[in-house]
């Protein structure tokens, strides 16, 4: 079932990420100078300052390093509360904020292994694939 979500940030660079998601791939920027990955999208590498960055498909694997559950309805009904968010440390290094796909707040253990999967979503920009994480 398609979920309505708050708006994505779209535009140059950001669109590369969402185009990857549409193909079932998690693509983030990798620096050509220092090889480090960045997320969210950056203009220059936040590690070495290089402007030579390319979107690369990554493993989609990571571990849950923190998590929370929204009880306050910050989105005024758009996302039914309560819902959970997880802070995933990707195998490639960056932190990725996401949602659990097949588990919930009380199931989570510190450093639990997870892998990416995609669900159908839509926002003001139209339908899209949203990367979330399932148990690995």
């Amino acid at each position, binding site marked *: 079932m398609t979920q309505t*979500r708050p708006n994505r940030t779209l535009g140059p660079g950001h669109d590369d990420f969402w185009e990857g998601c549409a193909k079932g791939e998690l693509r983030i920027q990798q620096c050509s100078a220092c090889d480090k990955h960045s997320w*969210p999208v950056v203009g220059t590498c936040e590690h070495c300052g290089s402007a030579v960055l390319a979107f690369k498909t990554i493993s989609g694997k990571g571990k849950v390093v*923190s998590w*929370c559950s*929204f*009880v306050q309805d910050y*989105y005024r009904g758009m996302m039914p509360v*309560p819902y959970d968010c997880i802070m995933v440390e990707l195998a490639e290094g960056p932190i990725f904020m996401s949602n659990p796909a097949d588990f919930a707040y009380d199931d989570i253990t510190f450093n639990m292994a997870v892998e990416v999967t995609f669900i159908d979503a839509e926002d003001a920009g139209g339908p899209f694939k949203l990367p979330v994480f399932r148990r690995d």
Partner: protein
Amino acid sequence: MSYMELFKVPDPTPELSRKSAIVGVGESDFHADYQAARAKASGYEGHTSESLAVIAFERALADSGLKREDIDGLGVNYLYGGPSAEETAEMLALKPKHIMGPTGGICAGPIPLACQDIASGAADTIALIFSAATRSIGRKFGGQNFGSGAPSSYYYHHPWGWSSQAAHWALIWQHYMATYGKTEADLASVAIQLRNNAMRNPNAIMQSPLTVEKYLESRYVVRPLHLFDLCLVNDGAVCLIIRKADMAKGLAHVPVDVGGWGHAAVKSDKLHTLVRERLRPQFQESGRQALEMAGIPLTEVQHFEGYDASTIHLINHIEGHGFVEPGAGLDFCKSGEMDVNGSLPVNMAGGILSGSYMHGWNHVAEIVRQLRHEAGPSQVKDVEVSMSSLAQTDQVHPLIFMRGSQS
């Protein structure tokens, strides 16, 4: 745009230490105004940023004992909009020769910048006004109606429903519990300590006792954080009058010298640094700058006022600056060390958790009362050095204050 892009914090050079002093302080009626706003009594119209600013300024001027014409500099900080500094000067019948530029609103940049302006000769006596009718204008936090979605901000994570300042502190607390084996009840001690402090301050908004049971029964806002882990939302204003130090003697009160300041910002891996390191590198670096400028070691700080946007964030300050080791902050609080008679009294007016949400300005106002030795039942015995620390999610701004001399 980040507020830090609006101005640059002056270098923390020892030459500027104790060259300026706070000689006047004024606050609006936080408690009475909050009660009136909650009760919505008939005829109650609420405050505007302007009306609050006038109240705080007139009180600070009266407190200082200075004449209106002594105020030759003005800096205004209306957090959610208000008149210009020129219009404010007219409203207050002031004729300042110096008007400060943008300083970011929150109590991070304005004091160092005022000290720099005084040292440069731009003015001798600057009135710094902060005013925010946060509650009256219906300001709501989180959600989709604010922000640009810049990758550095939490708005970027909208599609996953991750929003609000509170969510940052929730992730920190979850990670802290997992790392140090703590439970939700452990964090209650911080909310209770701050409430106890507030109850000694008649102008603090929250005056009813808090218990562990009441804390655990309160609703979650962003689990694992409860209602009492998050700061208040209220209207108010604070005015501080800062004067050239050699002109600050012989006035109505003991001057409170600005001894030092520091500033450090997260440069990369923002969420990693915030959640897993709890800004420790930034606390350490900025604290070192401020202490070096003031010429004292951390052990000489006798009273601390930290930015308690959340209970756990106050613990980040205590541990980050090095008052206790990482992981020891909650035991430190539980054993009473942050109380008025403890080894490091913290947030003696109730902070922003139970006192008033004045974005760091009320913390500095309390330091002024403490260092004058006029803090009543909250007075820290014989205090000579206080430290404030304002930290949001990616910046830390400590300030060191010292009790000055009347003669």
